[in-house]
């Protein structure tokens, strides 16, 4: 490989566009963090007004994990439908790993807030049950990947399992939380379709959610390329 013309031409470590996007993401996240602490008004409805600012991170991170698991499902379907390319499978696996990190952070930040607001770290609120099941489902996905030796079989079976996740996820995120009484604050977009929220709080939540979604795709892209480089070597 060292003598091929493509390898001798020096390429910059990062293309200019990527650098610009990274700088934008950095500024965006900095603005979201600043706004969460300084710009958004305190949420007076809660017992502990200061600690409620953790929600500006908890909700966007939970949203980010949902996006990650959705992306993992879509990449798995792409793998199954479009010629079974290993890179699609790898993209799904990396998305699940990152989604688990997001999911764990959402669980922890939720538990901390739950302790301050409700008085206990854990009380099996329907949404807490759902997030535990999501954690277990995608941890099981990784366990399945570890339990199959043949690479082709592993890709096929784990893609099918992740696609099954696309069916279960709506139940975990939307049906079960409504089945029983929940202490969770009303979802932003509730059954009546109105957004009962201060506009500045809403802006910060949307900004931070966009930021965390972009952060997921940024880290995903880095990890994915790193893993592919490692596998080709």
């Amino acid at each position, binding site marked *: 490989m060292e003598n091929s013309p493509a390898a001798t031409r020096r390429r910059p470590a990062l293309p200019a566009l990527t650098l610009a996007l990274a700088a934008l993401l950095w500024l965006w996240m900095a603005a979201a963090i600043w706004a969460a602490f300084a710009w958004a008004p305190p949420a007076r409805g809660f017992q502990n007004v200061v600690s409620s600012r953790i929600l500006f991170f908890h909700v966007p991170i939970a949203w980010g994990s949902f996006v990650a698991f959705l992306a993992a499902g879509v990449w798995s379907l792409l793998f*199954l439908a479009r010629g079974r390319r290993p890179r699609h499978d790898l993209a799904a696996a990396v998305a699940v790993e990152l989604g688990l990190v997001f999911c764990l952070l959402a669980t922890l930040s939720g538990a901390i807030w739950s302790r301050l607001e409700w008085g206990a770290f854990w009380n099996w609120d329907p949404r807490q*049950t759902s997030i535990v*099941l*999501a954690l*277990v*489902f995608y941890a*099981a996905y990784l*366990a*399945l990947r570890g*339990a*199959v*030796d043949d690479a*082709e*079989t592993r890709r*096929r*079976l784990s*893609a*099918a*399992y992740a*696609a*099954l996740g*696309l*069916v*279960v996820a709506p*139940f*975990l995120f939307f*049906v*079960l939380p409504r*089945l*029983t009484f929940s202490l969770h604050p009303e979802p932003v977009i509730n059954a009546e379709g109105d957004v009962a929220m201060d506009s500045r709080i809403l802006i910060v939540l949307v900004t931070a959610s966009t930021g965390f979604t972009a952060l997921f795709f940024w880290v995903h892209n880095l990890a994915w390329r790193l893993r592919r480089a490692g596998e080709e070597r």
Partner: protein
Amino acid sequence: MSRWLAEAAAVFAKDWRSEARTRTALNTLGLFALTTLVLVGVGLGPLGVSAAGTQVLPFLLWLVLLFATTAGLPRLFVHEEETRTATALRLAARPSAVFWGKLAHGLSLTLALQVIVTPLFLAMVQLPVGRPLLLVATLAAGAFGLAAASTVIAAIIAQARGRATLFAVLSFPLLVPLLLLVVELTRNAVTGEPAGDALRQLLLYDGSLAVAGSMLFPVIWNP
């Protein structure tokens, strides 16, 4: 269509024929259920007459059923791989026929288990049932969901290592939503309350498991 039905029926009949020879699944399921039933009965006594019983006992009934089926249903496909008959089955029937034939076999096993376990359980703990029809509907819909999820997961784990553990790990997140719904419905059946939205949600969950399972099964089944 009629050929498909014949193939699915053949898979179903074949499974019962080989089950009749060895009775492995029936023995495992039955004995497991019987031991846990005796444990519950000895440990709790006639709890059904108290108010706490109507809360706790529906959950225990489904716990017994769930663990008994997870002791027997993983064998649906593991057996084919162990006796090296999977390839013959791949040649003999199309994937969707295999899926529905296996699902029907798992469903009939689960229903047979329920027919024995549920009356015994209700009698042992002396639990009165306010709405018997709702209980029957819940048991049937729950059995279908259990069988559908188990069929998909059993097909996956048959091709992996550490099958028994892996089945529990993979099926748990699929079965817990089902368990929450059927326990809720069984409580309603016991106390005599109407089913509410839970029955529709249970049927929806059953349907989506079966549809997703039959769509994904060809990918899982064919190497």
